[in-house]
């Protein structure tokens, strides 16, 4: 059975340290202005804020691939969305189509020239001979070919960002949610997952958690601590 590589970010654990962003830039030596990964904070500065690390989500039905006029994208057998920089014309359609803002353009030339699109490769580089200088120069390091997972996920200090086989990371995430007793607060637990074999998750969605003090400022994003 083919592996289906995916990322998932546990927003209850992400502390907005930007370690994933830094590690990614360092690993692939991406140019100035190109961030394959970044962290976004919702309700920044307000008690109850949540952060999420975002990059290419390697969609199974990828909109970038659907809109690309030169058809430079492809899915690998492991479900990773890659693109051919030699074919890319830098039109920017993929940037508009992507719901996650994953495509990046170096914009180093004159007259607003965008340059070739660059995006997260799930540390799987691109259509070049694996582990060659040419591949590294165009697409960055190929960690998957080395038997390693993406550096952003592997270096995450709080293990917030999980990356790898979708079935395995979903299992890790599910166990985590069942252990702590509540799901992610940024999206719907009931939508994405079932209640679990160990019984129902005690607290889901917007309701208060068992271990929270009612009316405390931490429970109410609109109520600032005084």
């Amino acid at each position, binding site marked *: 059975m083919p*592996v289906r590589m995916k990322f998932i970010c546990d927003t209850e654990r992400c502390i907005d340290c930007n370690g994933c962003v830094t590690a990614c830039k360092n690993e692939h030596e991406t140019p100035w202005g190109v961030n394959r990964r970044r962290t976004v904070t919702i309700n920044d500065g307000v008690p109850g804020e949540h952060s999420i690390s975002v990059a290419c989500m390697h969609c*199974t*039905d*990828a909109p970038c*691939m*659907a809109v*690309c006029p030169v*058809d*430079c*994208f*492809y*899915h*690998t*057998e*492991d479900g990773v969305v*890659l693109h*051919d920089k030699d*074919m890319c014309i830098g039109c920017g359609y993929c940037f508009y189509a992507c719901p996650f803002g994953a495509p990046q353009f170096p914009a180093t030339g004159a007259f607003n020239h965008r340059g070739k699109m660059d995006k997260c490769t799930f540390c*799987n580089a*691109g*259509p*070049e*001979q*694996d*582990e060659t200088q040419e591949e590294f120069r165009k697409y960055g390091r*190929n960690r*998957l*070919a*080395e*038997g*390693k*997972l993406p550096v952003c*996920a*592997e270096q995450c200090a709080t*293990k917030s960002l*999980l*990356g*790898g*086989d979708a079935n*395995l*990371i979903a299992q*890790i995430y599910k*166990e*985590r949610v069942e*252990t702590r007793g509540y799901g992610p607060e940024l999206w719907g637990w009931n939508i994405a997952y079932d209640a679990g074999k160990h019984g129902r998750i005690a607290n889901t969605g917007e309701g208060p958690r068992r271990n929270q003090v009612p009316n405390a400022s931490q429970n109410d994003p609109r109520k600032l601590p005084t």
Partner: protein
Amino acid sequence: MKRAAAFALACACLLLAGCLEVEQHPLWRHGKYNGKPDNLPQQALYHGDRMAWMSTIQNRNWLQDEYPRTENRGAQNE
């Protein structure tokens, strides 16, 4: 009138047929994904042994789950 309507309908069908739906999951054939040459990840350093490559990836995947590690640490301290 009917003829004009049929003609318009045929034109609309032809126009719709022109909308290309890109093959999103091309098969890996002769070292290429739909014309884009790429190796399989196990070919560079794993001598094409997909099982060995997958087991390495899965081992590293499970390292992202810290619960078993903390449970063991707890048992050692007891």
